[in-house]
């Protein structure tokens, strides 16, 4: 009988932050009780086989404050987030269903704006919204609204992502600058009194994934969209799942000036900040150039880079090295990154 390994007495905020605590909850409570006997590592989407027809399916919930911010709003996140989870699992999203949990007292114009945003994001991403459900809860029980989207899609031809296929020597690619979304949200909350010309990077990464897999499909070992918890969390999960080390070069990490400035001011690490329009890929070395070129030529992929490679040691960890020979381990955070003054 599957054993529940989750020992904590109650649920804390950290369990939803995408870091170590979240992983413990999923692996220790949900996986043993819900997922059929499978030693497969948990991915961004499930690829299911129905008598020879393969369908990819995923789901995601969206909780964000403020609802609307430079570059987007909860509606767009809800569409792009699920499209992206399917894309990095190696599938093209075809249809979504949506659940709204709305707070009583939510002004209708606010809801309408989000629904319009979702409609537009779905059209931009080439995905149909096939249906949905609505619930209303009492005032105070939902920060205006929570949205869940469940998406189904068609697996991309000849793309199989599996962390167990990752080998030492493989290259780590990143589609573009990191930290834009998380810092935009932090600034939009207004508590820190900082201003910057920054926007969320929310977008569908499917066109980039398609371009890359078309050019380098057989060499693509693994992909992930580094959302909550940032690049650090995604790569730590990979390192754990494949038992190897991910070694990054600090100077290769693409970070916009304003994101860097905000991170330096607040004592945050861009590697821990959420992204909503980027993805990571691990590619076999003989395909890496083709993969990178395809990304750079694709609109929106101009800033894609090789940021590191897979090594033997330190096994199970992510290491960032500098050109002058210094290095540090980058771990998953416990909960959300917090600004510091010390």
């Amino acid at each position: 009988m599957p054993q529940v390994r989750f020992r904590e007495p109650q649920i804390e905020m950290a369990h939803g932050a995408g870091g170590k605590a979240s992983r413990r909850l999923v692996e220790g409570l949900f996986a043993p009780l819900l997922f059929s006997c499978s030693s497969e590592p948990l991915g961004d989407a499930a690829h299911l086989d129905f008598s020879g027809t393969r369908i990819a399916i995923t789901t995601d919930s969206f909780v964000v404050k403020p609802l609307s911010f430079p570059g987007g709003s909860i509606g767009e996140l809800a569409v792009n987030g699920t499209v992206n989870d399917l894309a990095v699992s190696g599938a093209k999203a075809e249809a979504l269903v949506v659940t709204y949990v709305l707070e009583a007292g939510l002004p209708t114009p606010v809801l309408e704006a989000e629904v319009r945003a979702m409609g537009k994001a779905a059209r931009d991403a080439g995905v149909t919204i096939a249906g949905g459900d609505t619930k209303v809860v009492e005032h105070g029980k939902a920060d205006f609204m929570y949205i869940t989207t469940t998406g189904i899609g068609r697996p991309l031809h000849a793309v199989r992502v599996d962390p167990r296929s990752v080998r030492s020597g493989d290259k780590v690619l990143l589609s573009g600058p990191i930290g834009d979304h998380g810092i935009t949200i932090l600034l939009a909350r207004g508590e820190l009194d900082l201003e910057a010309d920054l926007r969320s990077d929310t977008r569908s990464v499917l066109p980039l994934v398609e371009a890359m897999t078309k050019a380098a499909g057989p060499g693509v070992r693994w992909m992930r969209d580094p959302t909550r918890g940032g690049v650090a969390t995604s790569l730590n999960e990979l390192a754990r799942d494949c038992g190897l080390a991910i070694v990054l070069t600090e100077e290769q990490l693409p970070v916009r000036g304003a994101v860097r400035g905000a991170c330096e001011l607040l004592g945050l690490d861009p590697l821990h900040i959420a992204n909503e329009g980027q993805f990571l890929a691990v590619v076999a070395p003989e395909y890496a150039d083709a993969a990178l070129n395809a990304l750079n030529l694709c609109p929106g992929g101009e800033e894609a880079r090789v940021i590191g490679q897979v090594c033997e040691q330190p096994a199970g960890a992510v290491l960032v090295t500098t050109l002058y020979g210094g290095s540090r381990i980058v771990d998953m955070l416990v909960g959300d990154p917090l600004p510091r003054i010390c």
Partner: protein
Amino acid sequence: MKFVDEFREPEVITKTAEEIRRLADPKRHYRIMEVCGGHTHAIYRFGLKDLLPSNIELIHGPGCPVCVLPMGRIDDGLEIAQQPDVIFAAFGDMMRVPGTQGSPLEHKARGMDVRIVYSPSDALKLAQSNPEKHVMFFAIGFETTAPSTALTLVRAKADSVHNFSVFCNHVTIIPAIRAILDSPDMRLDAFIGPGHVSTVIGCRPYEWIAVNEKKPVAVSGFEPLDILQSIVMVLRQLRKGEAKIENQYKRVVPWEGNRAALRAMAEVFELRPYFEWRGLGFISQSALRITDSYAEWDAEQRFQVAGVRVTDPKAAQCGEVLKGVLKPHQCKLFAKECTPEHPVGALMVSSEGSCAAYFNYEHRKTAMVSSIASVV
């Protein structure tokens, strides 16, 4: 970033590291203490230890204001905030520090109004925009941060903001350094001096370290080249048998300190006769409290504070790690009962704490630095 990127230039870092290797006498083992937690964090963040020869040992000092705060003080602050209509405001650094009933963030999850602020002036603004509530700012920090709290209190009084108070845990650096040097189990050769504290107090307060204790001090900035240059400076002094105070961080630190900052502190604060430091015990004249002329804004005077002393679990060796006697991994609880997720002591919570720094940045590094050729 100007004034930052220049001091991270890889070629110059490599050159400076070579100079360090050239200066370090292979027959000597050097023990250099960086006092300030910010330096501890920088050393790990930039991987500077990888650049030093094995006979230079960097000892982490007690300059982490979160780490040295006894648990009882956190309990007291949270107890005040339990009262209706009180907002607990503090820097992000405090949010995960455990009190006996949980950390501020855990209290927030249970319904307390807890806010993260970047500046004490933001806490004051919070009070001004929430007139029906009381905002209590939980102040921490050495002399770097104390003047900002002081000026905020000056402003609160001048603007008659009555729904604001400060729970003051500011501490001073010199008594901590004295306690280290007085400790019989500590043998040190030199100090990397706290750069940002020195922008306020200047370099004079360290002169007794050179004159009486005969140890070199380089007051250092926080970029890789600053720290490495400071090591070069103290090594040169040690080679010549010298002991003096040098200001490596000249671009920012004035030798005489910041008079306006010192004036603001003198207006608002006075020295407590003694204060308990986690791991170092009671140290006299080492912490600040708010003077009677600002009593109305002193949370300890406005509210009843239990003032309970909470001792650390016996197994936790926070004190020895704070003093640099033990390395983090030598504490019996390190990486077992005490991790960043379940911290027993504050050294594992604070990003400046040597235990957290060691756990997050160093702990799983094996001998692979040499095996990494050019990565990309």
